[in-house]
């Protein structure tokens, strides 16, 4: 086979590739409400940011509560949203704002443990007027001791009262994954709490 024939073949396929790219239909992008809100915030609309906060605050609260002491949760939630606001222009897929916020929340909790010196936590009873019962604290503590994926989903479901599909929608997880996490997490939680089926 001659060299010109070989190069001819290569050019043939290169051209085909180029033609295919040129004639490929433009992929339609579905713009969700969240994406529209993100765009609006990027354009300087602060009311849109408040909307975004309302939409995702519960989810972020749950993600943070699954990891850090209750007393710190509110501050970290605010930090998460401030950080998100400053870096919103870096978000590439505006439809994935939920997953992005959840990731910021997880990073913030890790950062929290890195910067805080080990201290002994005050009893929950002393700090809050709405005192959780010993039972409630034990349950939350049991949930926190579960593996990452399970504890986050269970807090969102049992504490924040979100349904499975809602958790999937807000966190960007697949509904099947959420379902599995809920089921397995509940099984482990029951074992921890000594509840028999």
């Amino acid at each position: 086979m001659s060299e010109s024939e070989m190069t001819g073949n290569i050019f043939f396929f290169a051209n085909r590739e180029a033609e295919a790219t040129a004639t490929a239909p433009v992929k339609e992008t579905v713009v969700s409400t969240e994406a529209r809100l993100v765009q609006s915030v990027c354009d300087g609309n602060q009311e849109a940011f408040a909307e975004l906060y309302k939409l995702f605050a519960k989810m972020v609260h749950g993600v943070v509560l699954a990891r850090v002491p209750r007393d710190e949760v509110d501050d970290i939630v605010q930090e998460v949203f401030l950080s998100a606001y400053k870096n919103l222009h870096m978000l590439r897929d505006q439809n994935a704002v939920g997953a992005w916020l959840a990731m910021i929340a997880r990073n913030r909790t890790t950062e929290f443990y890195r910067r805080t010196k080990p201290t002994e936590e005050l009893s929950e009873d002393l700090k809050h007027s709405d005192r959780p019962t010993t039972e409630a604290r034990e349950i939350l503590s049991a949930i926190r001791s579960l593996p990452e994926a399970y504890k986050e989903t269970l807090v969102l479901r049992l504490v924040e009262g979100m349904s499975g599909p809602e958790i999937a929608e807000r966190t960007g997880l697949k509904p099947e994954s959420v379902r599995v996490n809920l089921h397995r997490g509940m099984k482990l939680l029951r074992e921890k709490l000594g509840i028999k089926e």
Partner: protein
Amino acid sequence: MKEEYLWDKTGEDPEIEGLEKALQVFRYKETEPPALRSNVVAFKTKENQSRRVLFFGLAVAACIALAVLALGVWMQISNPQPKGEGLVETVVPKDGFASSDDLEIKEDETRKEMPIKPVAKIRRFAPSATQQNQARNSEIKLTKEEQYAYDQLMRALSITSSKLNLVKKKV
């Protein structure tokens, strides 16, 4: 336990309902979003995008300039040319006849047949560095190892191309 209640809260499950009730105290209580100061805002999307495009363009231009410079330096080093070698003057007749500008013709000679006198000058460039390199390479004899590598490469190319041919036929 009823899985459906755990999943989408349809139906009833006293056990999970009990857990939900106990954990209610930890639930998120609606708060105001963090106060945003206008000077904190670190973004203006369109400006940032145009700045990014500008930086990218500058980076590309710098890369191209560097590449051209490097190529020039490399060609200069690998193929130094002595002064005056670049241009070769060849004397050839212009359409077989000399042009009137280039000729000094006496009046009495005008009637005579004009002599073919090669006087028109055409300047042409000497062969380029790459052409010279190619010519030089063609003279170089390959060692056994080089020849082997060359053969292997040609074989690989040939196989690839034959495969591509097959695909091309199928397509």
